[in-house]
């Protein structure tokens, strides 16, 4: 049963990667990275159960916690550039 779910997750990862490559605006790419991260967490949990070693869920837990840091760093990066652009336009 886990195999069906993991196949579905893998296909979604492919779709998210295609969106990351195609994505016209930069925020589409950030969205794709976010979706990709969540799917990795799901995939790692399902495979931990598939292998019959549920004590490896630490890895999925680590990803669940750390994924948001990358996304917020990107948004912080954009906010700085946007503010710098504003400062350049104003003076």
């Amino acid at each position: 049963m886990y195999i069906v779910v993991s196949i579905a997750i893998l296909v979604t990862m492919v779709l998210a990667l295609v969106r990351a490559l195609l994505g016209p605006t930069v925020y589409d790419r950030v969205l794709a990275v976010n979706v990709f991260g969540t799917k990795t967490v799901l995939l790692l949990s399902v495979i931990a159960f598939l292998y019959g070693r549920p004590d490896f869920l630490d890895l999925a837990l680590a990803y669940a916690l750390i994924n948001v840091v990358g996304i917020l760093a990107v948004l912080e990066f954009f906010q700085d550039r946007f503010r710098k652009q504003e400062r350049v336009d104003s003076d």
Partner: protein
Amino acid sequence: MIELALDVVSWVLLAVGGACVLIGGIGGLRLPNFYTRIHAASLTDTMATLLIFVGMMLQSGLSLATLKLFAIMLFLLLTGPTATYALANAALLSGLKPEGDTGQSKHGENTQP
């Protein structure tokens, strides 16, 4: 008897979770512009996380693994929508206006974030 019932319920949950994940992926690819895609990707994310992890928790019964699964589900449910909100907020602030009914994305090339 209980064992069979648990198995069936968790299988159904996992199957629906997998379908949800797939719908999110397809939606994220085919929808016209950014704000519609963010709906597709984030809503199904949260729903699929709930379904898949509850399905797995039923399978693993009362053990340390169930506690870990619950912790992962909790943090995913906490961080997923937050990241999506921050993303949509940043996009809106930087001038990517949601389309009316024109449907085509104004920002063709990604030179202008």
